């Protein structure tokens, strides 16, 4: 189910960002969410600074749990993106939908899992 949702989001995201038909976009099964280089830099900054206010600037954890690759190893990219967009009700983890697009949430989820936020 999560895989399916993730798949759909990527197609949507790529489509929305590039205005290209899914077939022209990067093969969806690589599960890469496209964002521009400039946006990627801004997202990296956002994760370190603004996610960092609860998860620690080095993502080693704060009030929120660590977001390092080890800590997220057991979770699918799509599931992590879902947590980012919807938050975790009843905890301080806020929903980022409205501030982040689905493609951006996927990009962050993948970057976190791969340890690419430095």
């Amino acid at each position, binding site marked *: 189910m999560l895989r399916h949702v993730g798949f759909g989001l990527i197609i949507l995201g790529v489509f929305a960002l590039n205005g290209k038909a899914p077939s022209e976009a990067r093969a969806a099964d690589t599960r890469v969410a496209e964002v521009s280089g400039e946006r990627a830099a801004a997202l990296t900054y956002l994760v370190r600074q603004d996610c960092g*206010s609860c998860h620690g600037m080095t993502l080693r954890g704060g009030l929120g749990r660590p977001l390092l690759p080890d800590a997220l190893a057991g979770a699918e990219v799509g599931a992590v993106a879902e947590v980012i967009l919807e938050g975790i009700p009843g905890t301080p983890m806020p929903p980022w939908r409205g501030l982040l697009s689905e493609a951006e949430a996927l990009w962050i989820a993948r970057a976190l899992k791969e340890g690419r936020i430095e």
Partner: protein
Amino acid sequence: MKSLTAALAILLLGFCAELQAAELRGTGDLGIVIERASGSLQVIDVTQRRALGRVQGLGDLSHASAVFSPDQRYAFVFGRDGGLTKVDLLTQSIVKRVVQAGNSIGGAISDDGRLVAVSNYEPGGVRVFDSDTLAPVADIPASYGAKGALSKTVGLVDAPGRRFVFTLYDAGEIWIADFSRGGDPVITKFEDVGALPYDALITGDGRHYIAGLFGEDGLARLDLWAAAPKVERLLDGYGRGEEKLPVYKMPHLEGWALAGKRFMLPAVGRHEILVVDADTFQEVGRVPVHGQPIFAVARPDGRQVWVNFAHPLNDTVQVIDVPSQKIVHEFKPGPTVLHLEFTPRGHEVWISVRDSDKVEVYDTRTFEKLAELPMAKPSGIFFAARAQRIGL
């Protein structure tokens, strides 16, 4: 020849006096600005509005805070990575540094200035050190429940009588550690204070300890003057059961402002400042503001409260006039306004603007900008005058 010697002697004398003047100075109007991304801080002269020097090598300073020794010469800086660093403001150098835990959130200094306590997320609990040597004095693991799990601790403050008070985030408990009889503390625990207490403050008179609850619509208050203190609920249901707005940054309670006879508190999940009567603890009003408030800090005279905001509205500062409860000024220093600190008598306020790498100084009466100081990703600003106030 003779006159030449005399001239030389006078020159030399003058030079010595100058040297000495440079060495002899008070530290009462010094302070520090945390440079969160580079593990450094700058020592500042608040009166001159200038930086005196940078101190490096303090580790991960995201969310760092500091307290000061009673003589106002030393700052104890609490880093995110468990680092506790004692910094000499006069020489702008590190006197001593220990990494006492894996992940920390703030600390406090005892009323007698001898003990420094650090609040830890990992391992959850409070560790206490000798302020002179930073040698360990006590370890207080925040274990709770049948399995003895460790809770993250938050809202650590000093209370009169060589005590520290802190809150267990995961457990929903408030603990008092009493060091009045020496290094082995007597612990008093208050259970079931409410869900997810995320930060706390102690009032300036050292009487009320108030913890904000994230998981509930209200706050928990402990009257430390009571013969048998117990936790009471405060502002229960202030959200009126309405759904919370997303909170992209946790509000800070330390800045909660006592302005005259009123407290001004940032609401959680509402774009409001709550106004509470300081005697009865009843809500007496609300001030709608620009976004989710983070700090609501009273100018020391209590006439104004300055407010900053969470992401994504963090470029703005609003000023509330306390008597009328109206916003009398709003301006945009730019993203991201992280912290503000008033001079002890409130004539000026220092504001850190993270993304533009500067600290700005404003006149609090005319709102005119008086100075800008370049700083690398500045966050917390702490003036040595805090040494003389309970809970700071």
